[in-house]
């Protein structure tokens, strides 16, 4: 074997097996090729029609911009529709009981499985973007758009598709039935449509103002880096969650996710504090606080669906040192651990949000609106998730498994958000116009925290409800805290 062959063989061994298989299948299969061909035909026809019907381009100053926006919409629409569906659909099929690929009984690691799938989907996205790029760059010659704007907007689209792929992957990894996955996919599709509309609208604004002239200004790079960082964190979060879902249930699978969230939470807080100090503005901390509140609120629904009994594999990893054991409790797999970690993190977020800006003498205090969301979202999430735990334990223990507690929590959230309001509307109001008057009927709706007049009422009710929910589940939490200790030596040996 020559040196070159040896090098190639070593390189071949290092390639993720999933990437090798997916690429081979993409090349052999028809789906990717046909999607690409169809997309190119659409782009060609759209651009052709635009040029033919566009009139005199020598006098038209926005022809290139208009053409670019049409082509961008086609490319982004196709990518948001097909690539996540392709990646998520294949993974979901491989996860299903009916499948015989049995990828999940090999010794390949979950991180390699998710990484391989995401990488291949991104490779297909890159292929599609590369194929579309000549058409989009061509619009530069039709006037009304500069090249930096074209590339920056394509980069934004690529990031958006990358997030979409990771979301689809996460749904595919969920240990739930086909019906729940299809329902979640429909919800995701609506979210993609909203993102699509926002991106197209934003692209119009960006193309109109021109990015080329702003490239050397902090005014461009500050929001660009913020978006890039937040996207990176979202992708990382989705990726780590997907990996955790593929990890055997007996493993300490919540640990890497919680460590990742905590690390990015600390890093995000530090960066926000620095920018807050430099700009004398509270906005970075508001963004950080709001995003943290959303993540920890979602984490509460996930936490209540985790296993309640401590598996021996997790137990063996519990440190003997009391301080490290306390720290481990917050990060190790387990429902009570997850709930306490999310609650503690939410409280710390609020404390940092309130305390940190004071010595920085920032301009103006925080808007009351943001403060209310930072407190309210995790508070309501705690109420609903813990009520779901109590209901499952007391009423539905035979019908609903603990891993589906999140679904019960979401159903309660839907009921609490809609039903009281509907009852109030039907019984007393008779029309939809008096939003201030009917505000009290939104008392169980966390999305109504924006109504100024009732904020105090909402938070008070949510706080009392949270205390009640905590009291009702005190034994549930206590029963999980008590056995959280390393097994003694004899037990360890017997395992």
């Amino acid at each position: 074997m020559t040196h070159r062959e040896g090098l190639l063989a070593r390189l071949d061994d290092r390639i993720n097996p999933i990437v090798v298989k997916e690429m081979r299948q993409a090349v052999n299969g028809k789906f990717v090729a046909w999607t690409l061909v169809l997309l190119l035909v659409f782009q060609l026809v759209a651009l052709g029609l635009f040029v033919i019907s566009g009139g005199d381009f020598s006098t038209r100053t926005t022809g290139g911009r208009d053409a670019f926006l049409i082509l961008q919409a086609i490319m982004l629409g196709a990518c948001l529709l097909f690539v996540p569906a392709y990646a998520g659909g294949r993974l979901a099929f491989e996860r299903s009981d009916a499948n015989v690929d049995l990828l999940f009984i090999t010794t390949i690691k979950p991180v390699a499985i998710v990484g391989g799938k995401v990488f291949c989907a991104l490779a297909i996205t890159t292929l599609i973007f590369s194929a579309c790029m000549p058409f989009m760059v061509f619009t530069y010659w039709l006037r009304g758009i500069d090249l930096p704007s074209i590339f920056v907007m394509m980069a934004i689209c690529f990031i958006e598709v990358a997030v979409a792929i990771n979301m689809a992957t996460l749904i595919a990894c969920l240990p739930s039935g086909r019906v729940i996955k299809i329902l979640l996919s429909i919800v995701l599709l609506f979210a993609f449509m909203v993102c699509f509309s926002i991106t197209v609208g934003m692209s119009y604004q960006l193309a109109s103002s021109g990015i080329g002239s702003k490239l050397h200004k902090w005014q461009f790079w500050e929001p660009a880096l913020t978006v890039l960082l937040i996207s990176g964190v979202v992708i990382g979060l989705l990726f780590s969650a997907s990996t955790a879902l593929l990890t055997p249930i007996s493993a300490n699978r919540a640990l890497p996710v919680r460590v990742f969230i905590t690390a990015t939470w600390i890093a995000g807080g530090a960066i926000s504090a620095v920018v807050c100090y430099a700009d004398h503005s509270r906005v970075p901390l508001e963004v950080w606080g709001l995003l943290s509140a959303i993540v920890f609120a979602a984490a509460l629904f996930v936490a209540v669906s985790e296993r309640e009994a401590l598996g021996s594999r997790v137990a063996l990893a519990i440190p003997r040192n009391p301080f490290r054991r306390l720290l481990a409790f917050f990060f190790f797999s387990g429902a009570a651990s997850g709930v306490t970690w999310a609650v503690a993190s939410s409280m710390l977020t609020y404390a940092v949000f309130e305390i940190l800006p004071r010595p920085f003498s920032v301009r103006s205090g925080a808007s009351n609106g943001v403060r209310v969301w930072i407190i309210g979202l995790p508070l309501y999430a705690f109420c609903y998730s813990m009520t779901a735990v109590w209901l499952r334990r007391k009423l539905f223990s035979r019908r609903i498994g603990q891993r589906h507690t999140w679904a019960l929590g979401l159903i309660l959230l839907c009921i609490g958000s809609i039903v009281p309001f509907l009852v109030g509307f039907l019984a007393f109001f008779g029309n939809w116009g008096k939003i201030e008057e009917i505000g009290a009927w939104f008392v169980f709706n966390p999305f109504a925290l924006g109504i100024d007049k009732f904020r105090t009422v909402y938070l008070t009710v949510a706080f009392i409800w949270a205390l009640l929910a905590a009291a009702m589940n005190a034994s549930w939490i206590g029963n999980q805290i008590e056995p959280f200790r390393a097994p003694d030596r004899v037990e360890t040996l017997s395992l």
Partner: protein
Amino acid sequence: MRIEVLNLKKYFGDTRAVDDISFSFAAGEVVGFVGPNGAGKTTTMRVLATLEEPTEGDALVDGVSVVQEPERARRLVGYVPDALPTHRDISVHDYLDFFARAYGIKGAKRREVIESIEEFTNLTGIRGKMLIALSKGMKQRVSLARALLHDPPVLIMDEPAAGLDPRARVELRELLRELAGQGKAILISSHILTELAEICSGAVIIEQGKLRMAGTMNQLFTQSVPRRRVLIRAAGGLDEMLRDLLQTPGVEEAHIAGNEIAVDINGEEDACADVLTALVSRGYRIIEFKHQRAGLEDIFMRVTTGEVQ
């Protein structure tokens, strides 16, 4: 190397797919896993293959728990499911290459392993074909080849002979014999009990998720059929011999079947020898005195009730 299933339970809602079953077998043994449809065979096998987590209980493969250490258990188990691979966009060789990579087999060793497995399972001639284009027998071979890639000491095979033609079944049987000869522990489920009886050293019978019987073939025959049936061929006087037999101690039942007399004797081999001695001493000229073994089918019919969940 020993495979132990310990008080395994798997519930799907109110349905008890597997209800507290325990059995074990060792390297070099081929164990038939028998039961009616819906008895819990596939669920048990999926638990052993780490595809399903049990509600309670555990299974140990060479001491490694499939619940606590599924990653380690996967190195020890090769699983052949009842469904076959049907991809239209991947060839036999690429499919095996992917799984070899997934099991962490690298470089030249991977090529060697794939080639030897292709040769062993007779896939060399069709390695370039797409999976969708293969016959059922060939797909079954691909499935077996995939399960053997990482040279697991334990093979779990769910209905590998279902739908195969006679030639493919005979070839599969030969492969299994060879694998057992290599010291692999094999758990195989099938509804073709006559074939199982030919290759299995033991069997586990379950019904409605519950263990009905388990042991070596000899143990099963003894446990399930306490009486022994012998066929006697003699030179003339069958009617007279039948009357004598019915009065002989130890004989429970006897009847003429063609030119032979079928006799059910209560007891072990000594009781059979006593009957033969009695006949000879009475002057009967015995041409043939042979033990008719009960088949796995007989045992299955005796120990199962035919009820479904």
